Every structure is written in structure tokens, then in C-alpha cells.
């Protein structure tokens, strides 16, 4: 693996960059692994990386049905924040936030973490109350978060309309300055490259077709490229979690919905932070290329097609124009959909299952990206030790039996 640095870049420039080597080894599928991670997205590659780095499980494979980062990792709007309401959520999302800050260096791959600040807007009394409650909880949990009145919102984001004539006028909002956006592909590639360097096999175009369960134990899995013997299988197959779980006869409190997003044509820098609004239902940032990156609401129905209904795009852009009337003449350049696994309490599942050795990391709904490093690290911990650490524990499956839900609908920021 070639080391990345400005110096290396200059050196390779002199001979036309013919000297670079593959970011990750392309490896064949072995018959036996100590652990297999199903799903080569951000969470999956991160899980494999931490398994190898922190738990010495280097004989690990990441099995990806398509190309790594091609699922939700390559389809989300890359918003990073940790301003969640409950202690359990704040713990895991803020753990991720701390890791984000130095991830580029750790992976020797620039993930373009841009801490430009995330604003969550309030448009009515009830939202004001809820956001106030959240911002206070964040503060007491050591999560950076501050309150902005309408005027301060506009100071931080000058192009936003705070007209009192708006159907949903901006009344205030919260700001997390450490929040921001990053480069989704870079995160996946960076983790894959670092994991590969530690010995992890990254297996692409390999679809899991079955799980081998003996008694109550997992012993291996079948794939389109051969069978694997393996004592630990970790499913991080966001969008297809129920499909994988079904292979072990496990039913989950998960429904898979289309979630759409879009970008505008690139324009010169005009929007310098991230703005999110539940009431009008829109969120928007501007990429380094200059595209406005906009997230839509989820489609109500279950679907694995990665396609949603166009009216949701129409409503999302109407909402964006409510907040940013100056964007009306900018053009929609591309829109797409992903599949989000949604839990009833809008919180994830990081858990053991009734099948020993089979672990699930899923149900991040619309907000999994921001958790990638934290999720990967605590999940690796669970897989390695067969016990959840204190960050992961609240997200065990048994909460749906006991009733101890982590109801984050407000903070999840997408109308479910």
C-alpha cells in the first residue's frame, strides 16, 4: 500500500502517477475466516477495520454484494452531527463525532471532514420546545450545541429566509458547530484500504445466499462465490438486514423504505453550513464541488428498489424554496434513492441475536452515516467480545420486548 502525502503526490506526479498501487488488495475468497462482515458499506468496512486493529481479528472478510460503498454509504447526504436527545444516542453519536475529527489522519485517507456547523430549525412552538429540550440535553451530555434565535440563524446562514410571512417562519434553531459534512466515498475507501492493509479481505461482487446455523450457533455462510466456514458473522447490510436475518429465521423490528436525495448543478460557494428542518421537511448543504446536496423525506412504503415517488422530490424542493427562495432557478441535476432500515423508535440495533455468533448492526433509519466510525468500533467490540459495551448495550434487540425504547424521532430529523 503506498503511503499518501503531499510529498508522495509530488513524487508520483513526475512519472505520470504510474507508480500508485491498489488502495485495497483484491483478494480471493478463503474457505475459513475468524469473522465475516456482511456488507461493504461505511459501517461494514469500519467494523472490519476495528476488528483487525483493536481486536487482532485480521483473518476477517468483508463480503459485499456489489461494489463497496454502493449502498447507503454512496447515497446519503453525509451530514455529521451528534445532537441527539437521549443519553444513549448522545453517547454513540458523539463517540463517532470524536473519531471523525481525526479519521483522515488515522486512515491516511482524506475523508474531507468539514466541520462547518449544522443548524436544526424550529418553525412552531412545539418544535421550539423540543429543540430547547434537546439543546439543553446535549449541553449537559457534553455535546456541543447552542441555541440560535431567528436573527442569529440568519447571521450564521445569511441566505435563509426568516420572513414572518412564510407558511413556516423560522423561529429559532440549534447549532452544532462541530457538525458538518464529509466525503462519503472517501470514508468507505479509506476504511477498506486501512482494513486491507491489516490483512482484511475485501470481497466485492459476492452475495450472501445463506447462513449456516447448527443448533443455536452460526458456523458459516454460503455466497455466490463459495461457502465459508466462520464462527462469527456480523451483518451490517443496511437496506437488506431483514433479508440476511431471514436466512437465520430471525424476524426484526425493521421496515425498509426508500429514502431519496438529490443534487443541484454546481455553483460557486453560496451556502456555507448545513441546514435541517423537520416542519417543512428539508435539509441542505453545499458540496465542495458546488452542488447543493438535499435530502428528501422517506417514502411511506416498503421497497428494495432504491426508487421512491417523484412527488417526494417535488415536495422537498418546495420546502427548500420555502427556506431558500433564491434557489428557485438553480437546477436539479440528479436524484436517486437508497434503502433505509427503519426501527420503530428511530434508533439503531447493535445486538447479539438468538443465533450465537451472529450479530446485527442495523436500523439506523435515515441517520446512519454520521455514526459510521462509532458504530463500527462498538460493533467490532461486540463481535470480538460477544458482549455489548456500555455504548452499544442500550441498542440491543431486547429493548423491544422490555419496552425500553430510545425514541429519537425528533432528533432523527426525518419524518417517519
Amino acid at each position, binding site marked *: 500500500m503506498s503511503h499518501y502525502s503531499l510529498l508522495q503526490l509530488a513524487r508520483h506526479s513526475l512519472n505520470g502517477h504510474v507508480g500508485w498501487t491498489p488502495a485495497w488488495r483484491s483478494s480471493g475468497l478463503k474457505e475459513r475466516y475468524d469473522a465475516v462482515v456482511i456488507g461493504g458499506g461505511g459501517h461494514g468496512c469500519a467494523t472490519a477495520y476495528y476488528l483487525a486493529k483493536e481486536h487482532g481479528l485480521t483473518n476477517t472478510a468483508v463480503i459485499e454484494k456489489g461494489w463497496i460503498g454502493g449502498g447507503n454509504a454512496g447515497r446519503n447526504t453525509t451530514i455529521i452531527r451528534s445532537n441527539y436527545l437521549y443519553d444513549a444516542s448522545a453517547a454513540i453519536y458523539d463517540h463517532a463525532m470524536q473519531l471523525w475529527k481525526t479519521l483522515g489522519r488515522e486512515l491516511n485517507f482524506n475523508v474531507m471532514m468539514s466541520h462547518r456547523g449544522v443548524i436544526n430549525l424550529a418553525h412552531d*412552538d412545539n418544535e*421550539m420546545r423540543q429543540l430547547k429540550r434537546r439543546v439543553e440535553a446535549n449541553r449537559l451530555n457534553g455535546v456541543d450545541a447552542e441555541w440560535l*434565535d431567528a*436573527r442569529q440563524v440568519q447571521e450564521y446562514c445569511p441566505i435563509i429566509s426568516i420572513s*414572518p410571512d412564510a407558511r413556516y417562519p423560522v423561529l*429559532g434553531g440549534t447549532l452544532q458547530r462541530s457538525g458538518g459534512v464529509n466525503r462519503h466515498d472517501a470514508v468507505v475507501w479509506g476504511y477498506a484500504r486501512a482494513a486491507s492493509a491489516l490483512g482484511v479481505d475485501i470481497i466485492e461482487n459476492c452475495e450472501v445466499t445463506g447462513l449456516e446455523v447448527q443448533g443455536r450457533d452460526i458456523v458459516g455462510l454460503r455466497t455466490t462465490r463459495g461457502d465459508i466456514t466462520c464462527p462469527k458473522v456480523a451483518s451490517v447490510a443496511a437496506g437488506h438486514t431483514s433479508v440476511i436475518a431471514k436466512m437465520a429465521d430471525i424476524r426484526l423490528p425493521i421496515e425498509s423504505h426508500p429514502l431519496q436525495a438529490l443534487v443541484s448543478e454546481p455553483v460557486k460557494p453560496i451556502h456555507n453550513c448545513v441546514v435541517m428542518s423537520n416542519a417543512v421537511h428539508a435539509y441542505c448543504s453545499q458540496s465542495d464541488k458546488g452542488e447543493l446536496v438535499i435530502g428528501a423525506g422517506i417514502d411511506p412504503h416498503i421497497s428494495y428498489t432504491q426508487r421512491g415517488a417523484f412527488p417526494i422530490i417535488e415536495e422537498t424542493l418546495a420546502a427548500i424554496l420555502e427556506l431558500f427562495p433564491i434557489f428557485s432557478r438553480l437546477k436539479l441535476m440528479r436524484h436517486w434513492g437508497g434503502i433505509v432500515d427503519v426501527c420503530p423508535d428511530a434508533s439503531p440495533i447493535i445486538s447479539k441475536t438468538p443465533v450465537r455468533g451472529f450479530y446485527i448492526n442495523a436500523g439506523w433509519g435515515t441517520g446512519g452515516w454520521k455514526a459510521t466510525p462509532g458504530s463500527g468500533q462498538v460493533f467490532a467490540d461486540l463481535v470480538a467480545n460477544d458482549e455489548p459495551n456500555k455504548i452499544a448495550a442500550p441498542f440491543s434487540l431486547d429493548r423491544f420486548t422490555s419496552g425500553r425504547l430510545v425514541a429519537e424521532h425528533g432528533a432523527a430529523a426525518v419524518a417517519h
Partner: protein
Amino acid sequence: MIDVRWQSPLGHREPLTRGTDVAIVEIAFMTYVILRGQAADLALAVGDTVGLPLPTAVTEANRSETTQITWLGPDEWVISAEPDADEGWMSALEPALDGTHHQLVTVSDQYTTIAVSGAHARDLLAKLMVIDLHPRAFGAGTGVATVLAKAHVWLWHMRDDADGSASFRIATRRSHADYVWCLLAESGREWGLPPQKPIGRVKLHLPHFETSD
């Protein structure tokens, strides 16, 4: 007779029209009665008192001079009457249904009616409604429950005139009426309808949180 104590949801709006292209006008104070029950239980009583056969399928609407009964669902109909109509069935129907499992609810005040007519009436509605308004699909004399933008409405195709103009009626929730009216006007701009400002653009106040204006 219009009682001076009455106030209609669009009382603050003047009819909007431009030549023969399109016209929108509120028909205030029509009578609407929801009838729920099993067709078999109701048909006779309805026939006797209202004097119209009970429609049995979607978009069916049976009409007399002053009264109309429209299929809304397999066990739901709306019986409507013109503003000044004082029909016998209004008092006769409930007793006639006595003993059958049914529901008869007056909702006249919950709705108001907007008449949309003119050579471009259909084109105007098509800007806001997703159902197929083409005469082949939604001929004169039919009615249906559907959506108009974000509002739930009942829509009737009253008639087609020889001069190529068509007449429709929309029944909308009282509190959605102004929204629907303003959208119709907005969508009718190309035929000369003037843009309308919706009501309810009001002062808001946030005592608990205000830290500046």
C-alpha cells in the same frame, strides 16, 4: 333565503372570471348529508324519500333538479342539495331508516362549494388534480372523492356545453376552501385570473423563547 347570520368560508372572495375561458365562484350554503350503511338496507328508503336510486359504483351520481346523491364508498354516499332547496327527504330520511344500521350526518357547514366553469375549466383543474378528467374517463353527470393538491375534495362534472365549455363543482372542507381558491386562481393566471393572497398570514408570538425580534 340567506340568513344574515350566516357566514360562508369564501364570503371574503369575489367571483373570478375572464371571458369564456374560466370562471370560479363559490356556491355557499349547499346542503350536504353523509349517509352510511349497507346499500341493501338503504336503497328502498332512499328511493322512497329522496326519489333517486342509490348509486352502486364509483363516480356514479344520480341527480334531480335540486338533489344529488353520489357514491363515495361501498357503504358511504353524500346527498347534496342546492342552497335554497328545502327538500322533504331532509326530515323524512332518518325516520325512514329507523331500525337499520346506518349513519346520517349533516355536514353542510363542514364544506363549501366552488363552481369551476369555462372553456378551460378542465385544463385548470388538471393543474391541481391527479384523476383523469378527460370526458372518456369522467363524463358529465359523474362525481368522485379525490385530492386537489393537499386538500381532500369531492368533484362533480356537472355538464358539457355545446360551446365547448364544461362545468365542474368542487366541495372542499371549510378550512381548506381559501387554500383551494387561491390555488385555483394561481393556476388560472394564464387565462387572466388574478393571483390571490391567502388569508391567515398572521402575527405569531413565542413568549417562552423570544430573545429578539
